[in-house]
């Protein structure tokens, strides 16, 4: 067994456990995007970064790929970590503003503006689909091609794949395919509909049962108008 310290709490885990798993065991939530329990950790989205080490000798590592080490001191929400995560989500948002998963992450972290040029890409290159196809579906129909800013996910030679069974697992696991709700003002880059987690519709429909969790403020505008009218 290995003992490490996360946010000041000692935790004992088995050898081979990652920092992310150890934190989860303690009930500490670390945001992730490219991580899935059923797949090999990849460490591509960098959202799960944590600060390790003490004194001046600290560094940020992705907790999903970093193994727990004896005596390791981990901070999951230090200032350096949170600031970096915010910038990472801003970068994601600038690339894929259409993804609900990413919009939710942004809302949760209090990101209200994007300072980069918006690109409206439909892939965040987290590699979940590639691993899903390879590891769970045993098909290896898709993979990464090119490098740097040219990187993309596709089939070999961009041809229709012989081994693809059109099972749809890649789409199922994709965080970018899950489109954002159209929110109150869809053309904006940052939706932030979920910033206010108390449902605004309660003002009008007292007994409304909402199916959306967290609230996506689908009726925010309508509610605001109604409240204004009642005044």
């Amino acid at each position, binding site marked *: 067994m290995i003992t490490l310290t996360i946010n000041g709490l000692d935790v004992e885990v088995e050898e081979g456990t990652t920092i992310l798993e150890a934190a989860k065991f303690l009930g500490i939530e670390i945001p992730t995007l490219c991580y899935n329990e059923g797949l090999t950790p990849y460490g591509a989205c960098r959202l799960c970064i944590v600060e390790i080490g003490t004194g001046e000798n600290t560094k940020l590592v992705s907790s999903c*790929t970093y193994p727990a080490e004896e005596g390791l001191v981990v901070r999951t929400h230090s200032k350096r970590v949170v600031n*970096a995560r915010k*910038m*990472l989500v801003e970068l994601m948002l600038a690339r894929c503003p259409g993804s609900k998963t990413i919009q939710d992450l942004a809302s949760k972290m209090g990101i209200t503006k994007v300072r*980069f040029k918006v690109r409206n890409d439909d892939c965040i290159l987290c*590699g979940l689909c590639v691993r899903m196809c390879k590891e769970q579906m045993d098909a290896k129909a898709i993979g990464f091609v*090119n*490098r740097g*800013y040219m990187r993309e996910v596709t089939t070999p030679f961009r041809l229709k794949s012989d081994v693809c069974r059109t099972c749809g697992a890649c789409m199922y696991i994709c965080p970018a395919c899950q489109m954002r709700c159209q929110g109150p003002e869809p053309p904006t880059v940052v939706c932030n509909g979920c910033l206010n987690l108390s449902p605004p519709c309660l003002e009008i429909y007292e007994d409304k049962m909402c199916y959306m969790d967290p609230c996506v403020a689908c009726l925010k505008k309508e509610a605001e108008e109604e409240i204004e009218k009642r005044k």
Partner: protein
Amino acid sequence: MAKEKLKKIEDLRRLREKLIEQRAAKKSWVIISSGTCGLARGSGKVIQAFKDVVKKYNLEDKINLRITGCHGFCQAEPNVVISPEGIFYQRIKPEDAEEIVVETVLKRKIIPRLLYVDPQSGERIVYKKDIPFYKKQRRLLLENNLMIDPKNINDYLAIGGYEALSKVFAGMSSEEVIEEIKKSGLRGRGGAGFPTGKKWEACRRAKGDIKYVICNADEGDPGAYMDRSLLEGNPHSILEGMLIGAYAIGASEGFIYVRDEYPLAVENVTIAINQAKEYGLLGKNILGSGFNFEIKINRGAGAFVCGEETALMASIEGRKGEPRQRPPFPAQKGLWGKPTNINNVETWANVPLIISKGADWYSRIGTDKSKGTKIFSLVGKINNTGLVEIPIGMTLREIIYEIGGGIPDNKKFKAVQTGGPSGGCIPKELLDLPVDYETLTKAGSIMGSGGMIVMDEDTCMVDVAKYFLNFLREESCGKCLSCREGIQRMYEIVTDISEGKGKEGDIELLEKLANVVKDASMCGLGQTGANPVLSTIRYFRDEYEAHIKYKRCPAAVCKEIIQYSIDEEKCTGCMACIKACPQGAITGEKKKPHKIDQSKCIKCGVCSEICKFDAIMVE
């Protein structure tokens, strides 16, 4: 010629003695530099011309031609050294061969026209050792390039090659070898500067029956070619280093991962491996020691990121060259999951030297924390372009002004870029910094693998940052979001700034983003990829501000915001620029001031180059 296998250390000693004797009988050597750089400047034809002349005069017994790797002085390529005196002729043309043979080799007369002229004093210099470029260097590794034909193992043996290996086999345990390397203070020459002995020890101690050693020859920094020169010019020193390392670690197989863009290096290393095998210096039971070792060559497809050790190993295994999280370190789990030790070409080349001359001797060279010599490729706006090998701790000023001979055309020095895309720009205020791992890191750059690009006053630092960001956005593997998106966004912002579209707050955003890229990325590429931006902002913030606030490029480089015009008072109306302009943008009559049509001008700068009267103004 079939070679006899060397079965014992004694056999090697006897062969060496024989070779030295044979060589001593021959008096005069003509040493022709013919690395890739030499070949590019026509050394192939020069060699043929020398061969023809020797044949014509029937001098086969008297004159020995030696075709060697790079001599380091790119500026003077192709060059010839006439031994034993060491007469140095530069920029040889095939037609010079006859004169050199007849006059210099046979009559010992100097041909002044072919001598090197010192740009500072204007003096002609006869001997290689007196040329300022060579004089200040400490060429422990590079000097051997002149002594051997890389395609002939006997040359290497004759200068004491594989002596270190014999010494190891004759009476050093693996632990003693590691201890010696540790004591020498040798640190990784790939750039990060990790102590080599410690690395070896970790791999030695790792559990596993199969272990590997790798030579990282995936040199990819723009303007850097130290490793190429060593591989081309002295491949056996690397093989010997790897043999010693493998013996110390307990590995029986080694790989040299070399870029396929280095065809001559691949060729020479392949020949070297085959020749070493013929002598039994590679293979089973080497020199009767019971130690087995094989080396294979892996050719890289030219991805910069494959120089990162985990990506390199993935590439050897046949997977996409993508770095992975460390730990586990290669020493624990490397190639195919086995303990692996990976070192840079120059690191390996230092090993035989340390073993044969001793750690005490080696550790006297260099500074407190950084020992030995380091090879840099000194390029850019510098008089003496070439490979320089200096004791670590020499100041940048000495390298640039004494070895490099200063900046051409009386321009002012602006900055020196070290460490390639992972490094930073060091301004003139810091020229007296000693070159060692710690100092350069503190200055916001890195020692790196040895690229050293000198920039003069005509260089725009925003443009430099843009160049490196463009390189990195293409060469990042693209796995980490921080590196892929972060560098791409930095590139977009810097491009905007260089095109006069920068906004207030851009510099601060760049700094914030750069720090996140540095912090959050997995491998060395991302962690250092922000250095070019951060260091240029740190030392040349005013240039960024000029671009943003006044839409001005102080060095007149950024095409989008500069404008060419003609000074009516200076223009003599010679029409030279009118003829030279590829766009037909300049109009005017003879002997009357000309004019540039801004709508047609593509800002190529040809007019400015051709004008003899300094009449073209750039703003």
